């Protein structure tokens, strides 16, 4: 290759890489705006060594508040959502805690069995950060109208993916 061609090529390479560096750096539309990375809304990212994909196995037992006896035949609608630590654009070592959006309908319907218990499992979720959680909410409704309606939420994470919970129901006439 002729030497002058190499010189031109080298110059073009430097110009191209220089353009890459300038055009890509921090929104070339003006000086960067100061961002407070100590904002309490931001949390420090705590990556899990290896991402964990896990299904949450939930279990809820409903007991009568007065008698402490299991309450069968109670309709429970369970829905769940992942709450994730989403990396901040301005502060790459920090994240904001956000609900996953645009997810399909994530719910299941149950009726308590003779032991007053329901159980089920969520879709598999990927946990990337120690703060990633799955929020499972139980909407409890007695179709016979004996017990008052109740909404209960529990948070599960990658270290706690099959916890059982107990909740107490109050009769409507005691309310």
């Amino acid at each position, binding site marked *: 290759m002729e030497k002058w061609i*190499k010189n031109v090529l*080298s110059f073009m*390479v430097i110009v191209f890489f220089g353009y890459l*560096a*300038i055009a890509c*750096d921090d929104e070339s539309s003006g000086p*960067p705006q100061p961002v407070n990375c100590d904002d309490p809304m931001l949390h420090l990212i705590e*990556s899990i060594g290896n991402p964990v994909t896990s299904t949450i196995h939930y279990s809820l037992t409903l007991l009568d508040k007065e008698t402490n006896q299991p309450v069968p035949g109670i309709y429970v609608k369970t829905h769940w959502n992942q709450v994730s630590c989403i990396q901040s654009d301005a502060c*790459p*070592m920090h994240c904001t805690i956000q609900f996953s959006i645009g997810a399909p309908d994530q719910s299941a319907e149950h009726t308590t069995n003779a032991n007053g218990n329901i159980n089920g499992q969520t879709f598999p979720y990927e946990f990337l950060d120690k703060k990633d959680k799955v929020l499972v909410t139980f909407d409890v409704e007695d179709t016979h109208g004996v017990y008052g309606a109740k909404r209960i939420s529990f948070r599960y994470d990658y270290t706690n993916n099959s916890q059982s919970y107990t909740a107490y129901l109050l009769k409507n006439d005691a309310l």
Partner: protein
Amino acid sequence: MKNRVIFVVLSLLSLMFSVSMYTDWRGYDHGLFYWGQAVLPLDLPRHWMGLLGTENESVLLYNIPDGLWMFALCAMILAVWGMSDKYNAAIWLFLALMSGVILEIFQYTGLVPGTFDWFDIYAYFIALGCIVFLSQIQNKLQWKNG
């Protein structure tokens, strides 16, 4: 010719990692990064961010991508000049290094967007050192193979 291909491959690989660090770890979605990811796709796992430990994470996020950028630039210069014209290659490598340093100075003065960082300049020198070291190894191997 073989040397030049190796340097082009090294340059593209280095750019690929640098672009992926910006897009996968720093969340950049600038059009150029979009094209960079489309041409040279690489999905860096987020937990790799913790490889250097939390206290050194900024090195991985800010300085190493710049060092990889300089490495890619120098590798491309060597791909143009090959190993035969060391004098001119050295001049252009020096100009490449200076272009990085000048960009940092411009960042300091506010002429171009970005944040001045001494560690970026160290990263440029280390990148240049690495590519020169690699070219020496390649030169020796070529000499041995006759």
